C-alpha cells in the first residue's frame, strides 16, 4: 500500500535534515502506530506521504514514496488525497463548512459529483462514523470527539485506501479515545482501510495496534511488533513515548519480559517474584492542615440556564497539596476552576481563599487555561516571565528559567518554541508571580513524555514550596502518580474525594466519573492483592524478580 524508500527531507531554513534516509513499508489492511517525541519528524513524514512537501518548495526531498506502487512524485496532492485521507490533530483547524453534511460532502463537491449522489454518500459515511442525525448541526455545536469523527468522515467520503491520523485523540477523554479507536479498528477490519496513527499516548493505544514504528531525530529506530518494542527500545522516555503502565511494572520488577497483557504479566510475576500480602499503606491525604481554599455549599448557574451547573459543593484545598479534579466532560470541573480563578461569581455559597474572597486574593492565584498558546503575549521568554510583574527579581527569573529548562531560550519568541516549551513558559510566567494556588486545566494534553516529566517536576517543586495545585485531568495515570488527593465530579456534584489509591481503585466511582479502569488495578486484582493503581503500589507487595532482567 505505502512504501517509503530512503526518504530524506531538509527544510530550507534548517541545517539538519528533518527526515534522514527513512524507509517504511505498510502493507494493505495493516494498522500501524507511529510514535516519537515532538520534533522527531512525524508531521513532516505525514506531509510527505500526502504529497504536500515537494510542492511547497520549502525544502529538499530525496528518495521515493510509492502509493499502490505509484510514485507520489508523479501524482498531484489531489490525486494522493483520493487515495490517502489525512486527519489532523485539531478538528477545528481542518473543518471548513458550517454544517456537518456540507463538511462531509466537500471533497465530493470538488470532484464535481451530482448533488443527489453526494447526499446519499454523505448519509452513508455519517452512519458509518456514528454521526447520523447530526446532518444539519453546526460543526461548532459538536463535542470534541464528534468533531474528530466528522474530520474522519470528511476524508472517508472519498473512500481512501489509506488513512493517516496525526495525534487524533490527543484532546479526547478516555471514553472518547476508546470509542474513536474502536471505530478505527472497525474501519480497518470491515472496510479494509490501511491505517497509520501518529500519537504519543502509546500507553493507551498499544492494545489496538499490532505494529509500532518509533521515530527519533528523523529516523525510524524501531519498526516491528508492539509487544517486542519495549524490550528493544530501551528507554521509552528518551523517545517521547508513554510506556504502558504494565510494561513499566515489568521494568520496575525486573521481569524477564516486558509485556502489556494482564494475564501474561500476572503469570510472569507469579513465576518470577515473591508476593507478600502485608497491609496497604495509603499516602497521607493532606500535606498540611492549613487550608488555602474552603468552599461551602457552592452553587453556580450559567446565565440563561434553567439548572445549576454546580450543585452545592463542599471542599477544601490545603497548603502543599496536589489535587486532581476528574470526571466526565460537562461534570462541572471547568466551572469550578473558573470560580476559583475569579472568572465567574458564585450563585450562592461561600468560597474563602486565604481568608478573603477570590476577587480580593486574585493575585495569589495562577491559572493555566487549556490553550496555553493564547496566554503567550510577549516577544521573548524573559519578557513573558516578567510581563506585568514588577515585583519579580532577576535572580528568581533565572532560577525559574533553570527549573523550566529554558535558560538557553531567554530571547526566543515564545510562540516559536515547541509545544512543551510553550506550556512551560506560561507555567513559568504564572510561577514568577509566586502564587499560593495554581489552577491547571488539562495541563498535559498533547504533551510528549519528556515534556510530561518536566511538568510533573514543576508541579512537585511548587507544592514542595508550600503551594497548592488543583489540576483538571482525564489522565488517570498522571493523577495516580502525582496527586495527593483526587476529587471526582459528576453532574455538578462531588461524588468522591480522597487518596488516589482509594478513589481510583473503586470501580463504581470510576464508572460514575467516566474514567477508565487503571491497568494496574486489573493486575493487582488478578494477583489477589489489595487494590493498587501505581507501579510503586504493586511494588509494595511484590518483590523484584531474582530470575528476571537486571
Amino acid at each position: 500500500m505505502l512504501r517509503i524508500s530512503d526518504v530524506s527531507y531538509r527544510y530550507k531554513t534548517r541545517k539538519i535534515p528533518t527526515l534522514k534516509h527513512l524507509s517504511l513499508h505498510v502493507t494493505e489492511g495493516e494498522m500501524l502506530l507511529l510514535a516519537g517525541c515532538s520534533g522527531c519528524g512525524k508531521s513532516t513524514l505525514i506531509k510527505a506521504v500526502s504529497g504536500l512537501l515537494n510542492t511547497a518548495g520549502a525544502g529538499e526531498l530525496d528518495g521515493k514514496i510509492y502509493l499502490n506502487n505509484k510514485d507520489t512524485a508523479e501524482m498531484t496532492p489531489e490525486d494522493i488525497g483520493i487515495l490517502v485521507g489525512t486527519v489532523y490533530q485539531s478538528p477545528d483547524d481542518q473543518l471548513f463548512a458550517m454544517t456537518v453534511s456540507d463538511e462531509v460532502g466537500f471533497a465530493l463537491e470538488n470532484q464535481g459529483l451530482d448533488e443527489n449522489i453526494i447526499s446519499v454518500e454523505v448519509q452513508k459515511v455519517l452512519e458509518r462514523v456514528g454521526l447520523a442525525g447530526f446532518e444539519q448541526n453546526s460543526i461548532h455545536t459538536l463535542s470534541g470527539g464528534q468533531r474528530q469523527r466528522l474530520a474522519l468522515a470528511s476524508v472517508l467520503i472519498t473512500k481512501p485506501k489509506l488513512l493517516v491520523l496525526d495525534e487524533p485523540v490527543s484532546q479526547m477523554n478516555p471514553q472518547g479515545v476508546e470509542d474513536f479507536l474502536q471505530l478505527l479498528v472497525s474501519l480497518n477490519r470491515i472496510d479494509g482501510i490501511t491505517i497509520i496513527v501518529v500519537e504519543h499516548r502509546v500507553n493507551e493505544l498499544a492494545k489496538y495496534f499490532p505494529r509500532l514504528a518509533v521515530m527519533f531525530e528523523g529516523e525510524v529506530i524501531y519498526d516491528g511488533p508492539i509487544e517486542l518494542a519495549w524490550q528493544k527500545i530501551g528507554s521509552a522516555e528518551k523517545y517521547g513515548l508513554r510506556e504502558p503502565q504494565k510494561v513499566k511494572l515489568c521494568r520496575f520488577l525486573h521481569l524477564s519480559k516486558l509485556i502489556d497483557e494482564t494475564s501474561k504479566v500476572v503469570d510472569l510475576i507469579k513465576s518470577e517474584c515473591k508476593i507478600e500480602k502485608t497491609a496497604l499503606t495509603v499516602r497521607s491525604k493532606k500535606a498540611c492542615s492549613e487550608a488555602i481554599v474552603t468552599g461551602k455549599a457552592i452553587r453556580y448557574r450559567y446565565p440563561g440556564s434553567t439548572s445549576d451547573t454546580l450543585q452545592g459543593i463542599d471542599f477544601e484545598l490545603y497548603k502543599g497539596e496536589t489535587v486532581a479534579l476528574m470526571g466526565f466532560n460537562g461534570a462541572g470541573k471547568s466551572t469550578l476552576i473558573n470560580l476559583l480563578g475569579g472568572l465567574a461569581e458564585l450563585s450562592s455559597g461561600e468560597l474563602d481563599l486565604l481568608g478573603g474572597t477570590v476577587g480580593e486574593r486574585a493575585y495569589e492565584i495562577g491559572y493555566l487555561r487549556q490553550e496555553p498558546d493564547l496566554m503567550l503575549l510577549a516577544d521573548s521568554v524573559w519578557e513573558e516571565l516578567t510581563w506585568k510583574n514588577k515585583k519579580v527579581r532577576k535572580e528568581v527569573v533565572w532560577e525559574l528559567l533553570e527549573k523550566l529548562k529554558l535558560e538557553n531560550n531567554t530571547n526566543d519568541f515564545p510562540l516559536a518554541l515547541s509545544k512543551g516549551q510553550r506550556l512551560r513558559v506560561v507555567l513559568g510566567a504564572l510561577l514568577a508571580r509566586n502564587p499560593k494556588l495554581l489552577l491547571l486545566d488539562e495541563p498535559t494534553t498533547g504533551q510528549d513524555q519528556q515534556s510530561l516529566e518536566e511538568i510533573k517536576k514543576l508541579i512537585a517543586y511548587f507544592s514542595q514550596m508550600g503551594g497548592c495545585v488543583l489540576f483538571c485531568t482525564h489522565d488517570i495515570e498522571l493523577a495516580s502518580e502525582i496527586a495527593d488527593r483526587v476529587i471526582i465530579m459528576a453532574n455538578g456534584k462531588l461524588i468522591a474525594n480522597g487518596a488516589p489509591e482509594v478513589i481510583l481503585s473503586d470501580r463504581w466511582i470510576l464508572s460514575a466519573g467516566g474514567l477508565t479502569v487503571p491497568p494496574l488495578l486489573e493486575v493487582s486484582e488478578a494477583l489477589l492483592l489489595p487494590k493498587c493503581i501505581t507501579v510503586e503500589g504493586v511494588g509494595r507487595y511484590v518483590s523484584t524478580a531474582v530470575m528476571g532482567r537486571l
Partner: protein
Amino acid sequence: MSVRQLWEGCDAAVWARKLDGRTKLLILFLVAVLAIVVDNPRTLFLLFTATLLLHLSARTSIYKWQVLAILLLLGLWGSMFSQALFFAQTPRTPLFVIIEPTMPVLGQITGGLYIYREGVIYGAVQGLRSAMMLSLGLFVCWTSDPRQLLKALITWRLSPQIAFMLVTAIRFLPVLAAEAGEVIIALRLRSDTRVGRKSIIRHLPYIAKPLLARCLRRAQTLALSVVSRGFFLATARKDEFWHTKEKFVCCLLIIFTIGITFSKIVYLLSEQGLYFGNLRIVYDWTKLYL
C-alpha cells in the same frame, strides 16, 4: 449562544441559507452601489429598513439582533453626533449651544460649540449608508456557509487561491471571536491589579499577537486539509447551477441599480448645465427621492 455561534448562520431560515452565494454577493455589491448613489435620507432609510426586513424574514436570533442593534446604534449615533458638532458647510442652523463663544478660555479657543441641524442630517445620511452595509453584510455572514461564498467566487473565475484566502477569513471569524475572548481572559488572569482582573478594554491592545499566531497555524492546517480533499481541482464549479428565480431577481436588481445610477448621473450633469428637456421627469424624480 456562544461567541462562536454568533458568527455562524446555522440558525438562519432555510431559504436564506439556501440562497446561492452569487445571489448574496451580487445583492451586497448592488446595495453598496445604491448606498453611494442615493443621498436622500428617506430613501436611504427605506433601503436600510429593507435590509432589516431581510434579517426579520431570515429569522435572525434575538441575540444576533441585540448585537446588530448595538453595532447599528453605535455607528449611527457616532456619525450623527460627530457631524452635528463639526459640520463645517453653510448654511447651518444651530439647534443647541454647548459652549458659548463668550465663555472664558474654552469659548475663545473654540469660537463656540454648537449642535447643527444640517450636521445631524448629514451625519444621519452617512450613518445610514454604513448601517445599511453593516446590516446587509451581517445578513450575508449570518446566513452563509464559507463553502457557498467560495463556490460563488470561483464560478466568477476568481483564482481558487485568492478565493480561498478571502473565504478563510470568514471561516475563521467564529473561531477568532471565541479565541479573542480566551485571550482577554488570559490577560485578565495575568494582570497584576484588581482593575486589570475585571477590565476588558485595557487588554484589547495586546490581543493581536496570540490571535495572529494561532491563525497562522490554523490556516496552514486548513490549507493542507482542503488541498488533500481536492479543493483546487474544482472541476465542477465552473458550471455550478444557479436557480432561475434567483437569477431573475438579480437581473431585476441590476436593472434597478443601473436605472438609479443613470438617473443620478443625468441629474448631476443637469446641475452642471448638461440639461435635456425630455428627461425632466427623471430630474424631478431624482431630486425628490434620490
